[in-house]
């Protein structure tokens, strides 16, 4: 191409200044640029090779690395929390239900450590504890999120949503649907049901909780704890596709392992009886245990004061916890199985039975009560200062004469009493299916030697005969003991779960002379129905038997109460144990009314429960009778020769 020295005069041509002679020659050809354009071309090649090398590096050398990253962006794992099983009563009524709630997760896949402090502050969580939990979790796979808070409050939700959303300040926070525990109101049955809570560090180390992870919710108390494995479901897992905001893409569930809900648990508790017992204990401290002595099924169990287990769902605040835990009345104590008090006169039927069975006395054996008796040079006072006059065993029980029992107890001796106390189960756990049962204690020369390293003083024996001294029982022990005697010598392990199969191990039998049993039972019948100490418990038309008890507080407890300034707490504890019917008992009820002063005040509690039991039974029988009457009536109609088409009620076959 010949284009050399072609000059096109541009419109803005400047004439070269002729006054400067060394001015270089002016050109308008492009030849000078040939080499530089070539360099530009080479540079272009370099630029493209540079760019391609970048893609080579990303797409050919490391595609797996980036694919994993893309998948980690796209796929999120979130747990599907399994609801706990419900707890229902013996008639199938729901006692503990679940309600839909929100659970806050900390997804560790995109967790920023510096976020922890503001999150803890915003949600009122313990920062140090969170950090500890994260350390514990660090061994587990990343997709395993930490459960930060259950049963989130509206304020918690507002906090999370205001910091989530498009701004994505805390992308590690994820709110999921869950089921929270809904317990009965006002602490009803709180001690039986118990509560759930986040697994503690100590529990994490416990092999019984080996399958649980930090942040998991477990049963902490009561049935919730005892049957935790039944009630706990198996959490599932969902792997979903999300967009950059974390919004789950519909129709794109990658993988789902559904949650297996926990199993429902049917209790032996009868909610009708429970409600009556709860009402009867209103405003009092103490406990009620109602059980069927034939099979050990617990029909009602109350402990007062109570607490609200709903406070424990989610995470209980420190203040609420210290209010409950620091209460001197110990609302968290299940008095039905943990209160250990002297049984007082409710022990007398056991002493009477022991004296009869060992042949120490017969039922005719009489004692004169002038209001006191002198033994071993010491005067023992009957509660009736005027004295009861001369009475036999029957009236001794009916009037709860201390003199009578000082005398026969002394005749029987401490070993005899201890043997029978042991036989009816005092000093042993009843084996009820609740955690933390107390065993009480039976005083005996061996026990005194073992505990106090001293000899038994003969003067201690009479006090034991009226249920004082070192004899300590729990309400459930007393219910089992008296129920077993009323059954003629068969003690069944008390239990709370309906379909628990009883084995030989759960039943203790002792061959008692039926006549002796009848003597004791008749005495207890007299307590209620023959002007005895328990007349307040009488139920017209029902052979209701019982025994009052007023147990003095141990001197230590008196001193403690005095120091605390509780004038009322110096009063005696009131007991009542009752059962019905007289010959074939179906229900035995124990009431402990702390500082109730006299057993007759506990008697009304037991009466209400027993009455409720039989009223319900009558109602059901009446209903069944009416129903069968209607059914029979309809069946009778069918025989009137009506056309076959008009017999829809009957079966066509």
């Amino acid at each position, binding site marked *: 191409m010949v284009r050399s020295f072609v000059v096109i005069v541009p419109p*803005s041509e400047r004439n070269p200044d002729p006054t400067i002679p060394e001015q270089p020659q002016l050109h308008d050809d492009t030849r000078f640029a040939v080499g530089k354009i070539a360099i530009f071309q080479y540079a272009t090649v370099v630029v493209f090779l540079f760019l391609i090398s970048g893609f080579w590096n990303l797409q050919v050398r490391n595609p797996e690395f980036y694919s994993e990253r893309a998948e980690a962006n796209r796929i999120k794992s979130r747990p599907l929390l399994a609801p706990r099983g419900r707890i229902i009563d013996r008639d199938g009524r729901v006692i503990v239900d679940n309600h839909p709630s929100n659970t806050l997760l900390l997804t560790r896949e995109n967790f920023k450590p510096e976020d922890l402090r503001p999150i803890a502050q915003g949600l009122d969580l313990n920062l140090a504890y969170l950090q500890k939990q994260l350390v514990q979790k660090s061994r587990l796979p990343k997709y395993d999120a930490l459960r930060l808070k259950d049963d989130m409050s509206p304020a918690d939700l507002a906090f999370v949503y205001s910091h989530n959303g498009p701004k994505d300040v805390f992308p590690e926070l994820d709110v999921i649907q869950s089921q929270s525990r809904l317990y009965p109101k006002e602490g009803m049955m709180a001690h039986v049901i118990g509560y759930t809570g986040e697994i503690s560090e100590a529990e994490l180390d416990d092999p019984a909780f080996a399958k649980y992870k930090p942040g998991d919710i477990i049963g902490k108390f009561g049935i919730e704890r005892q049957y935790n494995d039944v009630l706990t479901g198996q959490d599932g897992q969902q792997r979903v596709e999300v967009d950059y905001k974390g919004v789950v893409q519909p129709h794109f569930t990658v993988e789902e392992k559904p949650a297996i809900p926990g199993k429902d648990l049917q209790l032996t508790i009868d909610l009708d009886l429970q409600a009556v017992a709860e009402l009867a204990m209103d405003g009092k401290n103490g406990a009620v245990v109602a059980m069927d002595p034939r099979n050990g099924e617990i029909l009602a169990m109350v402990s007062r004061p109570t607490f609200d287990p709903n406070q424990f769902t989610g995470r209980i605040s420190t203040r609420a916890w210290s209010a409950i835990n620091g209460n001197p009345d110990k609302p968290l104590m299940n008095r039905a199985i943990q209160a250990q008090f002297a049984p007082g006169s409710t022990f007398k039927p056991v002493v009477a039975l022991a004296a009869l069975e060992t042949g120490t006395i017969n039922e005719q054996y009489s004692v004169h009560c002038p209001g006191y008796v002198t033994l071993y040079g010491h005067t023992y006072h009957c509660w009736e200062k005027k004295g009861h006059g001369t009475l036999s065993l029957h009236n001794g029980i009916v009037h709860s004469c201390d003199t009578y029992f000082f005398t026969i107890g002394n005749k029987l001796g401490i070993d005899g009493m201890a043997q029978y106390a042991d036989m009816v189960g005092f000093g042993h756990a009843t084996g009820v299916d609740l955690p933390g049962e107390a065993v009480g204690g039976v005083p005996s020369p061996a026990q005194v030697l073992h505990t106090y390293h001293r000899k038994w003083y003969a003067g201690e024996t009479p006090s034991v005969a009226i249920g004082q001294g070192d004899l300590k029982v729990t309400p459930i022990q007393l219910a089992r003991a008296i129920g077993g005697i009323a059954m003629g010598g068969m003690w069944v392990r008390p239990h709370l779960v309906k379909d628990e199969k009883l084995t030989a191990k759960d039943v203790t039998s002792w061959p008692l002379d039926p006549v002796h049993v009848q003597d004791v039972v008749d005495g207890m019948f007299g307590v209620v129905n023959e002007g005895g100490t328990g007349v307040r418990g009488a139920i017209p038309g029902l052979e209701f038997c019982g025994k009052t008890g007023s147990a003095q507080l141990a001197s230590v407890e008196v001193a403690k109460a005095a120091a605390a300034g509780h004038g009322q707490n110096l009063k005696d504890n009131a007991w009542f144990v009752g059962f019905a019917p007289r010959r074939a008992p179906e229900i035995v009820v124990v009431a402990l009314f702390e500082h109730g002063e006299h057993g007759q005040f506990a008697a009304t509690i037991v009466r209400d429960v027993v009455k409720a039991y039989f009223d319900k039974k009558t109602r059901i029988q009446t209903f069944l009778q009416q129903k069968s009457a209607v059914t029979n009536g309809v069946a009778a109609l069918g025989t009137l020769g009506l056309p076959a088409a008009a017999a829809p009620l009957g079966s066509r076959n």
Partner: protein
Amino acid sequence: MARSVGARDIDWTLLLIVLLICAVGVLQIYSATLGMKSHSAWWKQIFWVAGGLVLMWLVVPTDYHGFLHHVPLMYIVSTLALLLTFAIGQQAFGSQRWIPIPHTGIKMQVSEFVKLVIILLVARYLTDLRRDELDVGEMLKLAGLVLVPAALVLAQPDIGTALTYIGVLAGGVFIAGLHWKYIAVAVFGVTLVLFVVLWTPLGSHFLKDYQKARLTSFLDPDEDPRGSGYQVRQSQTAIGSGGMFGKGVTKGTQAQLHFLPVPEKDFIFAAFAEEHGFVGVVVVLALYFVMIMRIVQNAQTAPERAGMYICMGVAALLLSHILINVGVVAGLMPVTGIPLPFMSAGGSNICTSFLALGLVNNVRLRRFVN
């Protein structure tokens, strides 16, 4: 100017390549915005490409010397228009670049069109010198002229576009024959400035926080994965996960689930790389390479210096666009928002790019004029 210009003589090869790239772009916009509010961008893009072709056609008949004649006027208008963006411009993506055109709903990015003025300015200035070597005084005067609009664009702030102006200037100055020792000084100077800006406290006076963060996150994108390094990280993830053959059209999860920012605009090449893999990347980059080479060839056959400078300016402009955009999405450069010519959705860039092609063809049609 003995011959009249005819459709026969325009660079059909170049046009075919560019239209192929546009087609890939439209397809990728369609795929990347599937299910998004901005899904209409794909057919709008077709309109823009058609409009761009018309503009290109309009530019061709007028002899480019006519444009060069009006460079001073164009330069003044451009500077005023850039100033206008500060007064009535619209903010988007943290930068004030757009002037709304009344009654159309279209927003015009002035700085895009100014690129053409810069090309013409550099071409006219260097042509007028008519020397085979560029002395440093003239170079500095030209640099001063270019730096005024560049500074205005930088202040919007829009580093990427400003850099393309510098790219055009650098290309022109290089061709004009700046002595190698000045080139060495310039390279050293740029390195020094970068060093001062990045690693000394003085830098915080010149750069905004996000700009500094972008520069540092380029050096280590994983340092703050959800902060300033987010875009690079997501872009690299999209590209890398595409592998050799890609995930398939509309199957790119990074783009479809919006992990990739603006997948139809500045990050369209990452979205493309995710769905079409390394093979697709090489094919498209090859198209771009051939496109640049065709433009350079047109520069080589230009009848005189002005035409040669115009073609080389267009080549330098497009090359710097491709280098910056593709370099950014691949994590080879600090993040700066700049469209990929002929692919990214957006009218201003498409129009400017086709106008630039029009200039190249304008020069080409006059190559035999003697």
